[in-house]
């Protein structure tokens, strides 16, 4: 089981770094989907004993993040007819380097965090890393879709963190959260559609009509 866990964690790191370095949007969507599946599996693999509650939750997460979200996003990608992210504010190579440092510092940082009872500092570190990746995507990318992906990655990180540090969050809440995220992605999809319709592009940084 330990080896499966490390595989999952490795995949998590890999997906994050890939996202930071990749410009093709469709590919990124699939990577995020993969990440969702990986994250859904982590509690199943890592938590002993396995309860029905966790099983159900993980399953929902996998279905949503691995299936529904990518489908939604790919659809809006088709509508908007964009293929690639243009060169981001922070270039791909730089992003990757930042990601690398973020990974290292997350690991260092996580070991110092005062989560006394928890031993899964590695998972915490990777959760932090995932969140940072998400934020990086949110801050540095031009396309609306990239930002949605960033948001999803951020959510993934939080989810990952939650599995470790707050495993006793009631199920109703967990489902509520998932529902919210789903609606959020759905809403963002609609928003992207509308942006594309009104502006003929989805470059977020060109939406600067409102200021001051």
């Amino acid at each position, binding site marked *: 089981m330990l080896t499966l866990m490390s595989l999952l964690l490795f995949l998590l790191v890999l997906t994050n770094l890939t996202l930071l370095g990749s410009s093709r949007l469709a590919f990124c969507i699939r990577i995020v989907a993969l990440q969702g599946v990986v994250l859904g599996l982590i509690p199943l693999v890592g938590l002993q004993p396995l309860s029905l509650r966790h099983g159900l939750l993980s399953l929902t997460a996998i279905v949503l993040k691995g299936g529904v979200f990518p489908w939604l996003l790919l659809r809006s990608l088709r509508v908007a007819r964009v293929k690639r992210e243009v060169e981001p504010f922070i270039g791909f190579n730089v992003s990757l380097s930042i990601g690398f440092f973020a990974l290292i510092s997350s690991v260092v940082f996580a070991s110092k965090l005062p989560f006394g009872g928890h031993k899964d500092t590695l998972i915490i570190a990777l959760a932090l890393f995932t969140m940072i990746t998400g934020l990086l995507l949110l801050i540095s990318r031009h396309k609306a879709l990239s930002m949605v992906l960033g*948001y999803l990655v951020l959510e993934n990180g*939080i989810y990952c963190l939650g599995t470790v540090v707050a495993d006793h969050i009631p199920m109703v*809440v967990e489902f509520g959260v998932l529902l919210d995220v789903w609606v*959020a992605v759905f*809403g*963002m999809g609609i*928003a992207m559609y509308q942006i594309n319709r009104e502006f003929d592009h989805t470059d977020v940084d060109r939406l600067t009509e*409102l200021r001051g």
Partner: protein
Amino acid sequence: MSGLLILFLLIPLVGIGALFFVRRGSVMFMLSLGAVLLDVLCLLVGISGLPTCLPMQTAGGWLYLDHLSAWHLLVMLLVFTAGSLFAPVYFRDDLGSGRLSLTAARRYNQLWLGSLWTMTLTLLANNIGLMWVGMEATTLVTAFLVSIYPKPAAIEAMWKYLIICSVGIAFAFIGTMLVAASLPATGEGSQQLFWTQLSVAGGYNLLLLKAAFLFSLVGFGTKAGLAPMHTWLPDAHSQAPGPVSAMFSGFMLNAALYCIMRHGAIVNHALGSDQFTSRLYIIFGLVSIVVSAAFIIYQHDIKRLLAYHSVEHLGIITLGLGLGPVGCFAALLHTLNHSLCKSLSFFAAGRLGQLYGSHEMGRIRGALHGAPLWGIALVGSLLALIGVAPFSIFISEYLLVKAGIDRQAIVALVIFLLGSGVVFVAALEHLIPMAWGTAGDLPEKRCSLSAVAVVVGLLGLLLFFGLYLPVPIQNFLTRAAALIGGLS
């Protein structure tokens, strides 16, 4: 009695469902108004018994109503009632001319009731996770209210609103998780993350809890429009239709602040002092006041102006939260005053924007002559907003200053007074040419009864609370303030 809480959640849902079967625009508005009024009725029925049976729980402790949430519920229902009354006035022309399609009207009303539902959920949730879910849902529901009219700017605003608030609220969720994580592993009963239990539990990991509060503060603060996380707010407020802006500013921000209050209360309890939260409240309050002052000076769009006023006033409320029991009292009173006032001002701004065909303040001239009712509303609400007596905001700001003096927070007080002074000067400079002077040729519009009722009602309440603060309300607020700032 406790069945009431469930009713509060049920009524909007029923309303949303019923709206699917309505085929006439005006009836839709009537229906949502009816739903809101039904809620109000529930509150009125309950209100006689409320003081004695508060706090109360139901649904296995998941729904919970204490003085704090009851107060916010009251404010919320006031805002929604006013908004529902005003909506037909605002949309009538567009509904008639077909600029607002039936589908859009239905969507509007469903989203309207939806946001009522999500906010009710936020207020009634005992579990802080559920509270978060409600808050996040609020964002999602209301985002689409911004772009009921799919203009480019509205869509831009909606996008920014959606993405910024989603990210912000995501942080708040980390905060919620960290609260859970900071609990001792053995703490029985606190497993459900019920606020009622968290606020009395012991053995927290204090550092984690503090970190949790920082996340909640920044997260919910984004939604509450505290600077520098307020950036979405002027965009969304200015692009949304009048009633929606009013609801945003009048209550949604307060709902987010309400979440912060809840988290703050937990931290205060765990730390045994409110020094930690106070300092943060004061810092964020002051930053919001100063930042909003800067933007108010240079503003040219009336709704953006009002939006920045919201930033300012949320800052003031936050500042009040940091000033001990009297400050909390003032903050809660200010919540009501600001909501009343801001609803009215957004109604006026929205309607004047329609009449003058622009929200540019440079184009709105002599409203008192051109559109007397809305001119009066604008003048009354803006004067109230900048703290002119005898409107009630004067009273809450006065209490705030008193709290500051009692706490000897002199620096904070000076910054607050300077900031609000700048706002006063700038806002008045904007207001005078808008309301007075020669009005251009305006389309002659008859004022409907509901419009008059809204304006007179809101202004009357503002004046009433400025001159008279009934003892029951004072007692109620004292109890509510004790919940969040009971430590001195």
